[in-house]
C-alpha cells in the first residue's frame, strides 16, 4: 500500500477508491478540476448543450425525445427541470425500484411525476431475485448496494433500447465531481466501462456467476448491460448535465424545494439533508460498510464538496466529519427483517468488511478505527475557528423526515400522495 497522503485543500486521501492524484503542490485532482467551476464560461457551455440536444427534439410525432433516470432524491428534480423546462425536451422518466424506499422518497417521486407531468416507467425486479442477489453481494464482497447500483445504471439504457430513445440525461459525473477524473471540457459521456469500473467496483452481472456461489443466469440477466449492437442500432448517448451547468447540489436542491416542493430530511450520519432521503440504507447500513471498507464515510464527500464550494473551511469540515462519522446506524433492524437474517449475523458480515488498513481489533476495546480522520491529525489543532456547527446545520433544511408521517417500513410500490401532506 503506497504511503497515504492527504490533499491540502480538501479532506480526501490518496487511496480514494475512485483513484486520486496529488500534484506537486499537494492539491488533489478533484480540487483542481473543481477550480474549472469558477473559470469556465457557463453561459457558453449552456449554449453548447442547447445546440447538442437540438437534433433530438422530435416535433409532433408520438415519440419521447430523451430518458431521465429519477429517484425520490439525488438531483432528479433539477435534471427534469433543466431538461423539460429549460431545454424544452419531452422526457420519459425511468426508475429502478431499490426496495429500500422511504415514505419521503416515495412522496418526492410522486410529487415529481405530478409537478412535471411526465410519463414514468419503473422496473421492479421480483423480491426473491433481489434478496438472493443481495445475500450474495453482501457475503461475497460486503456490498448491499450492488443490485441497486447495477439496476439504476442499466435500466435507463435498457429502456432507451426498448423505447428506441437515443438520449439519456444523467446529473453530474461522479468521477469528475469527487476526484477530478475528467475535465468538464472533456464532455465525457456514459460508458459501460465507467459503470463496471466504478459504479460496480469492477464486477458486472456475469462476474457474479462464480462456480462456488448459487447465483444463476436467471438471477442476474436483468442486470446485464445491453449488447453493443443494440446501443449502436439506437445511436444511444448518455449526457452528463454537470459538464454544461455549474453543478452545485446544495443550491440546486434549495431551488427545487422552492419551485417544486422537493422535501429534504435529517440523515443521522451526515449534515446534508437533500441527497439520499429516498433510501433507508444509503446513509445507514451502506454508509457503515463504506467506513469499514474505505476508512471514510459519505459525510466526508459532502464536506469536501462544501469546502470546494467555499461554504465550509477545512477545519469546520473536519469537525463535521468527526461528529457524524461515529454515529450509530439507525435502521439496521429494518434491513435484518427485510433480508430475514438476525442482527448478530449481520454484524458478523459487516465486520468482515473492515479493511485492515483502517481497523484493528483489540481484546478489550474491540475494533479500533485508524481511518482517514485519524490520520489527518493537524487540521483541528491549527485554529479552533468552528463557526457553531449548529448554524451550519441550519443551512441544510429538513422539510420533513424519512418516515414522512408513516412508520419506518420499506415501501415496495407506494402511493406517495395524500391530501393533507402534499399541500
Amino acid at each position, binding site marked *: 500500500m503506497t504511503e497515504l497522503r492527504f490533499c491540502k485543500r480538501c479532506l480526501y486521501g490518496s487511496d480514494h477508491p475512485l483513484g486520486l492524484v496529488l500534484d506537486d503542490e499537494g492539491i488533489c485532482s478533484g480540487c483542481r478540476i473543481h477550480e474549472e467551476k469558477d473559470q469556465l464560461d457557463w453561459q457558453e457551455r449552456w449554449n453548447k448543450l442547447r445546440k447538442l440536444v437540438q437534433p433530438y427534439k422530435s416535433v409532433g410525432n*408520438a415519440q419521447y425525445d430523451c430518458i431521465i433516470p429519477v429517484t425520490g432524491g439525488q438531483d432528479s428534480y433539477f435534471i427534469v427541470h433543466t431538461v423539460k423546462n429549460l431545454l424544452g425536451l419531452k422526457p420519459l422518466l425511468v426508475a429502478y425500484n431499490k426496495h429500500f424506499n422511504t415514505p419521503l422518497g416515495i412522496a418526492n417521486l*410522486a*410529487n415529481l411525476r405530478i409537478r412535471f*407531468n411526465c410519463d414514468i*416507467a419503473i422496473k421492479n425486479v*421480483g*423480491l426473491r431475485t433481489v434478496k438472493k442477489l443481495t445475500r450474495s453481494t453482501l457475503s461475497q464482497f460486503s456490498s448491499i448496494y450492488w443490485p441497486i447500483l447495477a439496476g439504476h445504471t442499466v435500466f435507463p439504457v435498457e429502456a432507451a433500447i426498448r423505447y428506441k430513445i437515443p438520449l439519456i440525461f444523467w446529473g453530474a459525473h461522479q468521477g469528475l465531481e469527487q476526484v477530478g477524473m475528467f475535465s468538464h471540457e472533456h464532455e465525457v459521456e456514459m460508458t459501460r466501462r465507467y459503470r463496471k469500473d466504478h459504479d460496480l467496483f469492477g464486477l458486472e452481472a456475469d462476474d457474479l456467476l462464480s462456480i462456488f456461489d448459487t447465483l444463476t443466469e436467471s438471477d442476474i440477466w436483468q442486470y446485464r448491460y445491453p*449488447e453493443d449492437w443494440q446501443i449502436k442500432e439506437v445511436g444511444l448517448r448518455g449526457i452528463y448535465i454537470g459538464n454544461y451547468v455549474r453543478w452545485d447540489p446544495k443550491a440546486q436542491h434549495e431551488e427545487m424545494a422552492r419551485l417544486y416542493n422537493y422535501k429534504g430530511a435529517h440523515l443521522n450520519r451526515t449534515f446534508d439533508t437533500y441527497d439520499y432521503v429516498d433510501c433507508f440504507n444509503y446513509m445507514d447500513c451502506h454508509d457503515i460498510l463504506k467506513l469499514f471498507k474505505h476508512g471514510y464515510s459519505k459525510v466526508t464527500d459532502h464536506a469536501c464538496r462544501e469546502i470546494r464550494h467555499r461554504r465550509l473551511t477545512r477545519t469546520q469540515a473536519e469537525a463535521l466529519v468527526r461528529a457524524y462519522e461515529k454515529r450509530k446506524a439507525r435502521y439496521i433492524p429494518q434491513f435484518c427483517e427485510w433480508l430475514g437474517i438476525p442482527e448478530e449475523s449481520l454484524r458478523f458480515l459487516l465486520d468482515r468488511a473492515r479493511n485492515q488498513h483502517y481497523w484493528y481489533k483489540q481484546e478489550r476495546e474491540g475494533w479500533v478505527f485508524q481511518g482517514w480522520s485519524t490520520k489527518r491529525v493537524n487540521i483541528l489543532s491549527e485554529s479552533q475557528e468552528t463557526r457553531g456547527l449548529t448554524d451550519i446545520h441550519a443551512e441544510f433544511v429538513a422539510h420533513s423526515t424519512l418516515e414522512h408521517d408513516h412508520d419506518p417500513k420499506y415501501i415496495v*410500490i407506494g402511493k406517495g400522495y395524500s391530501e393533507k401532506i402534499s399541500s
Partner: protein
Amino acid sequence: MKYCLRCLQPDTRPNTVFTEDGICPACIYYEQSKHIDWRERYEQLTDLVEDIKRPHSQYFDCIIGVSGGKDSTRQALWVRDKLGLNPLLVSLSYPPQQVSQLGVNNISNLIELGFDVLFSGPAPETWRRLMRESFLRFTNWARSTELALFASVPQMAIRYQIPTIFWGENPALQVGDTQTMGRNGYDGNNLRYSNTLSSGHAWMLEAGLKKDELIPYIYPSVQEFDQSGIQIIYLGWFLGDWSLLTNASYACANGLNIRPEAPLEQGDLYGISNVDEDWHNMNQMIKYYKFGFGKVTEYVNEELRAETLTRQEAIRLVKRYDGRCHERYIESFCSFIGISVDFFWSHVLKSVNSNLFEVTSNGHIQPKFDVGIGLHL
C-alpha cells in the same frame, strides 16, 4: 327491457343479443362450458406453450397485464407456477392522486411474490385532463384510462419483443361482446374491437391534446401486431373455474388486499373488484343509470348460474345494492377533475336512460322497472 330467464342480466348491454327463448349469451356459454373437456384444452395450451421461444438474450417467456387485482394476480400465479413460464408483468397504474393504498399494496404483493413488474405511470396532469374530457363527452371518465390500460400490454410486448400475451376472459364469450371474437376461443388479437376501445383516441386529439402527449393511449395497429408476431391468448378459455369469486379466492390466499367498505357504500358485495382506485364504483353507478344494471348484478348472475343463490335473494340484493355509491367518492372525483357536484349530477342526469328511469322533481332518480321482471306496465 327484458331480463334473461336464467340470471338477472337485462338486454340493455350494447352488442349483446339474447336467444329467442330469452337466455343471455353468458348463460348460454355457462351451459356449454359444462360439457367442455378441460383436460383437452389444458393439453392444447401446453402444446402452444412449448413452441414459445425466448426473445434474444431475455429470460421472459410471455407478458401479462396486471393491476394487482384478483384476475391478474391469479393469472400471474397460474402462468408461472402451473405452466412453468417466466412472465414479465406490465402494470399501467393510476397517478398518485387517484391510485388507492390497496392498489399499490397489491402491486407490491406481486413483486413480493417474486414477479418482475414493469410499472408505467402516464403523466398525471394529462391523465386528469383526459378523464375530465372523457366524462364530459361520454359521461364515463374511463374511456381514456381504459385505452391506456389495454394499450400498455401490447405496447410493452412490442418494445420488449415478447410476442406472447396472456389475457383474462374472452369478452365475446363470457360477456357477449361479440365483435372481439378471434379465430378461435382463445385468440385475443381482436380485443382491439371491444366496446371499451371502440372510441379510439381520435376524440382526444379533438379535445386539443397533441399526439406526443398521447403515447400511452395509442393502441398498437394490426400491422404493428403482425410485425412483432404478437399473439394474445385468453386464459379464460382454459380456466374452467374462472369467475369473480374463484379468482378472488385464489388471489386472497396469495396476499391480495381487498376493500373494507360495506356494499351500501361501494355498490360491490364483497369489495373484491376495482380495488386499485375509488371512482370505478362510481362509474358503475352511472352505468346502472344508463343500462339498468351495475356491479352487483354481475355478482349475482354468476351465483345464479352456479345455482348458489335463489333468484328471489338475487333480486333483493340487486334492488338493495346495485348502483350504490357513497357521495364522498363523488366529491373526491369532482374535485379531482375540477367540477362541482351539482354540475356532476346535471351532467349525469342528461345520460340517464329515460325509458328505464324517471327523474322526480327533487332530482331523485327512480327506476321504472322491477328487477327481474322488467318495466312497470
